[in-house]
């Protein structure tokens, strides 16, 4: 059973629009939720993260909204740019040292 679920599988937006990526998780003990961005031919790289004590985290055009009660979170990319075209992975962990559990990813395409 997938511990971390992402939707949609793929998403297409026009330049300047807001892309919304969804994530949900099963294990209520998870307390750290990073989002990783991956471009073709590269390894994933940390984009933004949130802990379970917060309900919102903002970094430039990227914002995480977190709902602990519903075990859901979302990543909003405002003013989307063609350079944001990538696959975005939601991940979760209880203990940093034990590694992250990743979702299957959302492929985002931004057209000019």
């Amino acid at each position, binding site marked *: 059973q997938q511990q971390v679920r992402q939707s949609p599988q793929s998403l297409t937006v026009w330049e300047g629009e807001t892309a919304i990526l969804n994530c949900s998780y099963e294990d209520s003990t998870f307390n750290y939720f990073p989002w990783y961005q991956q471009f073709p031919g590269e*390894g994933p790289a940390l984009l933004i993260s949130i802990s379970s004590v917060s309900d919102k985290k903002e970094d430039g055009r990227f914002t995480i909204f977190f709902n602990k009660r519903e075990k859901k979170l979302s990543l909003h990319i405002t003013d989307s740019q063609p350079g944001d075209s990538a696959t975005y992975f939601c991940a979760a*962990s209880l203990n940093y040292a034990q590694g992250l559990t990743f979702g299957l990813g959302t492929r985002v395409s931004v057209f000019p």
Partner: protein
Amino acid sequence: EAAVTQSPRNKVTVTGGNVTLSCRQTNSHNYMYWYRQDTGHGLRLIHYSYGAGNLQIGDVPDGYKATRTTQEDFFLLLELASPSQTSLYFCASSERTTGQLYFGEGSKLTVL
């Protein structure tokens, strides 16, 4: 800039073959990880390590061995490779206090 280097970047072997994937990090991180990435499965943790001589089992360890020889070097071993192990393999390192994973560029393995 955190650095994780993997080798080889591409490898083709036959069923039953012996493969070693190498990873070196120059971040002075304590933790290192091996993930595999497959379409439809996302990133899955194979093995991880706290430090030299330490090895922990991840979520999909069957058919894989790993060894951490130094703080810098982490190896993934496939002693009897099977076609189901055809995948893109990523090594990563992290510092315990931040949890941020730094990924290498990946090693593509094809088992014929």
